[in-house]
């Protein structure tokens, strides 16, 4: 497990969160409430002031120089403490991509703004016809008078309504011999004329995701990332980064603690059948954590994470769903009421549990669905014919 020094490190982070994060925001995160953009930005700024907005970034760009193990402890401790997720799009996905493939001007302009929270990014990858099969995307960009002119539609664009910038994959060479080879990555200011954003209403009543339409949207040439038609390669790096931030040990630990609290309040731990399910989830978490630590051990030795990161994503997301489901089970019929003032005032925890169960279904869908993750693992195991 953690060394003494690592434990001291975790304690320092925990103390910071408890001192800096308003209790009201922490409670919202734990109760699956809606964290307002201002609240998230305030937390982003607090982390930024401490120099912790992007610990995994190199020091020259404002990172910490921490080891992979320290970055892991940091992320998991934040999640366990109920800190709002800053969103992976800028800090974990675009930032590292620009460091590798961006122009000097792009790095100078965008990285500090990502770090400070001044720019909020969304990801324009998925389309109505391109989900798991991202390479089939159709949004086009043509070079006209030196500008990229974008036409098409993106879908499931999480946070587009709160973001001011989007990094998007667009088709720039429809005649490329392979579909993957004709795709470029553009940085698009969402205030550009010709962009319209339509919210997608989910059954939970929230508008967290969107459709984004492009009608002759002019993007300046300097907003191309790297070389034209190489966007697919860059996106693989991005999705790899998304995968790494998705093991969710700290979040699952927090949810397990909540499950025990709710189950205790509902006198459910006296029921052997239910108590056994809680125990099963706890053991699953212990196994997952041991797996993550083994991966870290290899990271300490300088190895890059391999296919076990995909395995962690699969099992971590499934455990997250299991815990959400058990929370609903623990509160029984009281999980049904939904909406303002619907929940029993004596069970303040009950109102959002089914919503949280519903919301959690997405974690095996986004970031490369678990079916796609299994395909990737199948390939790496040498199972022939795996797609």
């Amino acid at each position, binding site marked *: 497990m953690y060394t003494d020094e690592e434990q001291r490190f975790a304690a320092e982070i925990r103390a910071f969160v408890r001192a800096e994060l308003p209790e009201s925001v922490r409670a919202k995160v734990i109760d699956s409430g809606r964290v307002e953009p201002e609240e998230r930005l305030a937390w982003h700024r607090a982390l930024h002031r401490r120099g912790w907005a992007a610990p995994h970034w190199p020091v020259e760009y404002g990172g910490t120089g921490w080891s992979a193990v320290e970055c892991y402890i940091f992320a998991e401790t934040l999640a366990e403490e109920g800190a709002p997720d800053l969103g992976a799009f800028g800090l974990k996905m675009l930032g590292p991509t620009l460091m590798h493939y961006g122009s000097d001007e792009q790095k100078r302009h965008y990285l500090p703004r990502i770090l400070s929270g001044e720019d909020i990014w969304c990801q324009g990858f998925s389309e109505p016809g391109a989900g798991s099969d991202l390479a089939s995307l159709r949004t086009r960009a043509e070079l006209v008078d030196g500008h990229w002119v974008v036409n098409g539609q993106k879908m499931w664009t999480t946070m587009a309504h709160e973001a001011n910038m989007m990094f998007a994959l667009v088709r720039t060479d429809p005649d490329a011999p392979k579909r993957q080879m004709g795709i470029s990555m553009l940085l698009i200011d969402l205030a550009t004329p010709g962009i319209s954003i339509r919210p997608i209403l*989910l059954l939970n009543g929230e508008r967290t*995701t969107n459709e984004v339409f492009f009608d002759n949207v002019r993007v300046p040439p300097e907003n191309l990332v790297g070389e034209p038609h190489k966007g697919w390669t860059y996106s693989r790096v991005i999705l790899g980064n998304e995968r790494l931030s998705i093991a969710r040990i700290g979040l699952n630990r927090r949810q397990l603690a909540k499950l025990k609290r709710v189950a205790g309040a509902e006198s459910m731990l006296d029921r052997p059948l239910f108590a056994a399910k809680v125990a099963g989830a706890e053991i699953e978490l212990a196994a997952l954590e041991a797996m993550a630590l083994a991966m870290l051990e290899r990271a300490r030795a300088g190895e890059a994470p391999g296919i076990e990161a995909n395995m962690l994503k699969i099992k971590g997301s499934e455990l997250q769903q299991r815990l959400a489901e058990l929370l609903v089970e623990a509160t*029984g019929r*009281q999980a049904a*009421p939904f*909406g303002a003032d619907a929940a029993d005032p004596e069970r303040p925890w009950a109102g959002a549990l089914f919503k949280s169960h*519903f919301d959690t*279904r997405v974690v095996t869908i986004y970031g490369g669905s678990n079916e796609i993750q299994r395909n990737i693992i199948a390939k790496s195991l040498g199972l022939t014919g795996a*797609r």
Partner: protein
Amino acid sequence: MATQPGPGAAAHDDAEIRALLRRSLETALARHYGFEQRRDAHATPAGHSAAAWAAYAEIGLLALTLPEAHGGLPGSLADIAMAAELMGGVLALEPYRATMVAARLLAAAGTPEQQAAWLPRLADGSARAALAHEEGAGRLDAPIATQAVRDGNGWRLSGRKAVVAGGDAADIFIVSARVDDAIGLFLVPAEQAVRRAYRCFDWTGAADLMFADITLPGDAKLAGGAGALARALDEATALACADAVGAMRAASRLTRDYACTRRQFGVPIVSFQVLQHRLVDMAIAVEMAAPITAAAIAACETADDPARIRAVSAAKVKADESARYIGQQCVQIHGGMGLTQEYPAAHFFARLGLFERAWGDSDEHLQRFASALSSRESLD
């Protein structure tokens, strides 16, 4: 009919009547329950479709099995289950099952005066009823805390009932309460309860009720008690299973159709064997749930108490298991589309997910089945 019909002919008539009811209801649902019509119905203050409710009444679905003297029509619980299944398939929002369970309980256990006062209005759809039994988290084995005490010629009722399905729309409640050491059932007009009405995550309506030491007349108590209540709860459970079976069938069909048309990697996603097997497992799950649900419905009508208890708990356990798998796979295979409000997949997930929580969950029914088993074996 001129000649005396034999038992075979009666069964034939029953089947014919049910087929007729089925066709009528299918026609009514096709007319009133498009997905957008459902959304619009949900947006009304009542939260469900007045037109659909009127159609149920017109077809006679609300009168089924009730005494003909009070406006009822002949039929069986299986007819009601058939209707519930079709309504589950379109995610209907009206309190049909709630009203039927309460009306049948009133017909079975109410006094002649109570029946005469309420059954005609329930049978013609001008009033709705609900059985208010569950408290707290609705655990099957939780003792009833609501209490009724004698007060002169009348009764005083105090307690709280939680998440009463259809309780938002009911005009009359049948409330279970402790009376000394026994269980009593009381007819309580809605205006006498402090009612907190709301919608559930699946868009159906419900209510919490509070009785703050209210006074009821002496004739508010039903003639029947614990036995009638137990039977009504089992009927409610079996009918909920029937509704879920309808939702499962529709969710499986929706998912299959989506997988057949959604293309990724140049092919319909249904061509991937991993998805084929899941769709097969969904089909198996439907077929595992439907017949055992029909058996539970039949047991509610014909079996003795221990056999009925076992049949209903068995159906709930299997239907829960199938509902969980189908609801979750329906969302997963649809991807992001499976979470939106504008498409039925998420609504099926919600309905099936809350079905699992209604009328006792799988663990409680497993436990009840096991207890029934051991008590029966110890008798042998």
